[in-house]
């Protein structure tokens, strides 16, 4: 049961990744693989700032500020990819590869080493967990704080993290929904849908793409920043395979909701991310070798891309930018 709770929490955190991938691949039809660098960048910036704060506390080393700055850094990376593509006319995939590769070095610089431990420092989960302690104090003998529920003993800390993440994702999801209903957000969606049309209606599609990739990668970096704090370490390799993982979540989500309605696609991304995590957890329980996970995920996305029956079941949508003529 406690495994389930942490699986769900990770699934929720990574639905931010799914949001980001949804924006770049689906809304903008842009195969952005900056993702793999920006998720690590978010984690690296947040972890480095928090650790820096354990010696030199300051406003920007508080877990919240560190998390947001991590997201912001990811946004800058996305903007960089957008500028390479629109301003310097570099192929979209290659723009992402260039930034992703550069980020590997930058992430190492930010962290100073290839991984950072966040074991004994406060994180954004500290507050909620402190609150939970107040509501349900730990046993006086100093044992693990557990909450009996329907025959299980649930870790109070894990429950607090889950509840907090749920609220956070709900807030971000709602903010995204509202954003894409504004004039600016609507124009962004139109940019991916029919760029010629929205140019003829006076929008600078290049600028739209640049800011859209910024938004996408900010969300992805936010996922990295929160994920690192949840698992209490940041690793320079953690971004590897994240594009495919995010795509898998998006595809599962679309298969679940089968609609282009904005609310449903946002909820779908969350559900897709959760379901993907659950499937992974189950497969691992069955004795799947964790090293095979990426092969299987890639295989899954491949099948979803090429199997016409499968794809048409997903509501006749093409997977943006991947099926090149």
């Amino acid at each position, binding site marked *: 049961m406690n495994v389930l709770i942490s699986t769900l929490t990770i699934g929720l955190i990574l639905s931010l990744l799914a949001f980001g991938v949804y924006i770049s691949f689906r809304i903008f039809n842009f195969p952005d693989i900056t993702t793999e660098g920006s998720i690590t960048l978010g984690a690296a910036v947040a972890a480095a700032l928090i650790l820096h704060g354990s010696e030199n506390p300051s406003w920007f080393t508080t877990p919240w500020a560190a998390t947001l700055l991590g997201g912001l850094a990811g946004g800058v990376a996305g903007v960089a990819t957008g500028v390479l593509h629109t301003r310097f006319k570099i192929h979209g995939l290659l723009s992402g590869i260039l930034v992703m590769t550069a980020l590997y070095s930058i992430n190492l610089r930010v962290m100073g080493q290839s991984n950072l431990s966040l074991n004994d420092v406060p994180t954004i989960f500290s507050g909620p967990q402190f609150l939970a302690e107040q509501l349900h104090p730990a046993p006086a003998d100093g044992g693990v704080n557990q909450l009996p529920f329907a025959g299980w003993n649930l870790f109070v800390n894990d429950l607090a993290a889950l509840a907090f993440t749920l609220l956070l994702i709900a807030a971000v999801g709602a903010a995204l929904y509202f954003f894409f209903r*504004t*004039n*600016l957000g*609507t124009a962004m969606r139109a940019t991916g849908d*029919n760029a*010629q049309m929205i140019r003829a*209606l006076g929008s600078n599609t290049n600028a739209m793409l640049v800011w859209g990739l910024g938004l996408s990668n900010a969300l992805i970096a936010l996922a990295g920043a929160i994920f690192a704090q949840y698992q209490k370490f940041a690793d320079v390799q953690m971004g590897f395979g994240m594009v495919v993982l995010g795509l898998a979540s998006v595809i599962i989500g679309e298969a679940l909701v089968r609609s282009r309605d904005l609310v449903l696609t946002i909820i779908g991304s969350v559900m897709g991310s959760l379901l993907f995590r659950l499937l992974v957890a189950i497969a691992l329980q069955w004795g799947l070798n964790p090293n095979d996970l990426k092969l299987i995920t890639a295989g899954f996305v491949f099948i979803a891309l090429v199997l016409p029956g499968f794809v048409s079941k997903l509501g006749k949508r093409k997977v943006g930018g991947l099926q090149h003529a």
Partner: protein
Amino acid sequence: MLRITNATKTFHPGTPNEVLALQGVDLHLEPGDFLIVIGTNGSGKSTLQNSVAGTFMLDSGRIRLNGHDITRWPEHKRARLIGRVFQNPFSGTAPNMTIAENLALAARRGKPRGLGWALNRETRDRFREQVRALNMGLEDRIDNEIGTLSGGQRQALTLLMASFVKPNLLLLDEHTAALDPKTADQVIHLTKQVVERDRLTTLMVTHSMQQAVHLGNRLIMMHKGRVIHDIRDDEKKRMRVEGLLDRFEEVRRVEALDLPAAELLKAAYI
């Protein structure tokens, strides 16, 4: 209103595929002019429109519109002044967005797009009324995706969108060519209505002799990147389909004389 001076455009210059699409076009439209552009395939009609709209930049020449020199303006900036309907019904609307959302985008043509709501009750009501005026029964479907509509319905909507914010210049590039005759008539009727209501300065390309004869107060014929006929006012009014066909025939005759001559020249030079 619109003044094009000595516009030239060459595609793929210096390669075997070189096309002299515009070879020194001069054109001056007064406010309220409704210009019909006809010409053979590949004569440069679309190129002329695209270079006014800013799809690409001219090689040389100037374009002034409404007092601005727009020669170097990017496409999205020119869109402040220009409304456009394309030949392809898929080009003018965003298929995966609803009718209302498409109209909301058009309602802000050339205006900043900020964080205000794209749609609210008041704008939806307004859009519904405007869609009702199209008489296509779309007023109850404004929350449907445009991709579910027919080509004619999409063209009618695109026309509505192009004129939503009154443009200084309306560009129509064979916007009924992809429609069946009945729908084409409907869209032409609507075109007339919109242009007359707002007295829009209009540049319309067409292949339909009927349209060329019955619409507009001026007509130019293009051939090989040049304007070869310019027919105005009374002469335009008296113009009949036969008269236009004669002019095409004339071009064809000149062409027939020219081709062997060109061949001779080529042979002499190579």
